């Protein structure tokens, strides 16, 4: 038996070649240009239409507020971050566990998936006051709302991912006399990961929305509370600065999940 070495030497490279650094620079250039144009358009519109500052502040004022009110903004970012990260972890963790249960028990799935879907259709804004009534205005209702909002996309995607195994893979595992446990840990989990990360990315930003909405209803701290406060006081620049912080928080969570995905999902899903 002689191995065909010629074949082994051809074929695609082991890893895709790293993009040259100037490609990243070029991408960054277009991204920055996009932001610059948007901000310029913002400035132009309020100048041309003569929009009052307390309705829409000019970008310069927002920048000023970002600098001057940094301490206030930072102090209020921390509780919101805790609520959204905590809620995200609880919500998606719970969703993963429930998805695993659903995949293994047809009956539980048939019974409770409709319940879950009905609950899902209730807008968070509608549940939030109820939860604040039930749980007071401490950390608990915010965690629950952020968790709820992370829960549904993760559950639905995770169930779909775990079931995305094709019949040929299942036949392979059956020929190998693998048990359910092995099929789960060596096949289903891996199949589900790309689906899971797709939903975690959605859930990570949604959890920030959940925490902010929860803070609107009953809180004296956090970015949500700051939004209410600055709106009532006509401090529109601070309001916009708060939105920038909320957006950055969501982006940081999103980027962390994306980074984790790159570390975990190192293969190319079919």
């Amino acid at each position: 038996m002689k191995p065909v070495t010629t074949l082994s030497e051809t074929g695609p490279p082991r890893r895709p070649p790293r993009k040259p650094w100037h490609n990243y620079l070029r991408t960054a250039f277009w991204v920055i240009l996009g932001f610059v144009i948007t901000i310029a358009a913002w400035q132009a519109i309020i100048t041309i239409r003569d929009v009052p500052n307390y309705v829409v502040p000019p970008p310069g004022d927002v920048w000023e507020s970002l600098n001057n009110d940094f301490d206030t903004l930072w102090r209020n970012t921390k509780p919101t971050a805790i609520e959204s990260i905590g809620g995200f972890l609880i919500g998606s963790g719970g969703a993963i566990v429930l998805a695993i249960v659903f995949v293994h028990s047809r009956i539980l799935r048939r019974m409770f998936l409709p319940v879950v879907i009905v609950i899902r259709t209730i807008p968070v804004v509608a549940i939030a006051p109820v939860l604040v009534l039930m749980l007071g205005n401490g950390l608990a209702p915010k965690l629950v709302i952020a968790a709820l909002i992370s829960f549904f996309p993760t559950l639905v995607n995770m169930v779909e991912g775990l079931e995305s195994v094709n019949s040929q893979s299942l036949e392979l595992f059956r020929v190998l006399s693998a048990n359910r446990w092995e099929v789960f840990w060596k096949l289903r989990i891996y199949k589900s990961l790309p689906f899971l990360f797709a939903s975690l990315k959605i859930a990570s930003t949604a959890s920030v929305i959940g925490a902010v909405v929860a803070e609107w209803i009953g809180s004296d701290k956090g970015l949500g509370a700051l939004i209410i406060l600055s709106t009532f006081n006509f401090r529109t620049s601070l309001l916009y600065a708060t939105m920038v912080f909320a957006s950055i928080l969501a982006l940081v969570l999103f980027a962390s999940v994306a980074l984790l995905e790159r570390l975990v999902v190192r293969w190319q899903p079919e």
Partner: protein
Amino acid sequence: MGSGELRDNQDTDTAIEVAHATVRFATDQGDITALKDVSVEIGVGQFVTIIGPSGCGKSTLLRLIADLLEPVSGSVSVFGAPPSQARRARQLGFVFQDAALLPWRTAIKNVELPLEVGGRTSRDRPTRDPAELLDLVGLAGRHQAYPQELSGGMRQRVSIARALVTQPQVLLMDEPFGALDAITRNRLNVELLNIWAEIGTTIVFVTHSIDEAVFLGQRVIVMSTNPGSVHTEIDVPIEYPRAPDLREEPGFVAIAAQVRKGLETA
């Protein structure tokens, strides 16, 4: 096939016996009879190829032997026992049409998969070294490659190595080279015969190619469709090792013509 006493005499030498097996699938449009009264007997260490029109039940027959399906009537036995026993005892290896590799595992990790699953049955069984097997199928130096970094032919080699790692006594191959170009296919045919010569396992090989069927097999089973059944069996009395240029020789051409006629009347 054969009379009772003939079968008794051959019992020790029979690897696979399918006797009057009928397989039906329930579908929305009613039942489909995929196999009807199929009887096949394959001796230990034989290389048998199966050919037939699409939908005649070739894959179904393999899956029947691999304990992935059960007949509604008739019987299947592998080494005189039910196929489920052979499967649990790791006597069966299966090579799928599209390799069926796990994309998150490197080539070597894919070959190791059968050693990681199967619970208690997989322990204390003679196994082969996955690295050695990858070298055997011509993938030395590509052990750490992921499936998507390999060509179709290379993936099929990995899949063959994976099927061999448990040292199966029976290797079931369902159109393993169907998606490959003619040159790669011919090369892998030669390599497969070399592997067979080395490990001496029983091989049942499904193909759509007359050429491949005659080149590889000691016997070609021609199946016909509607319902799926065995049409004819044609012996290929050509010595091994078989070289690629065998295909031009009159003996080979004559048998290939015979198979083609069988297919035409199937």
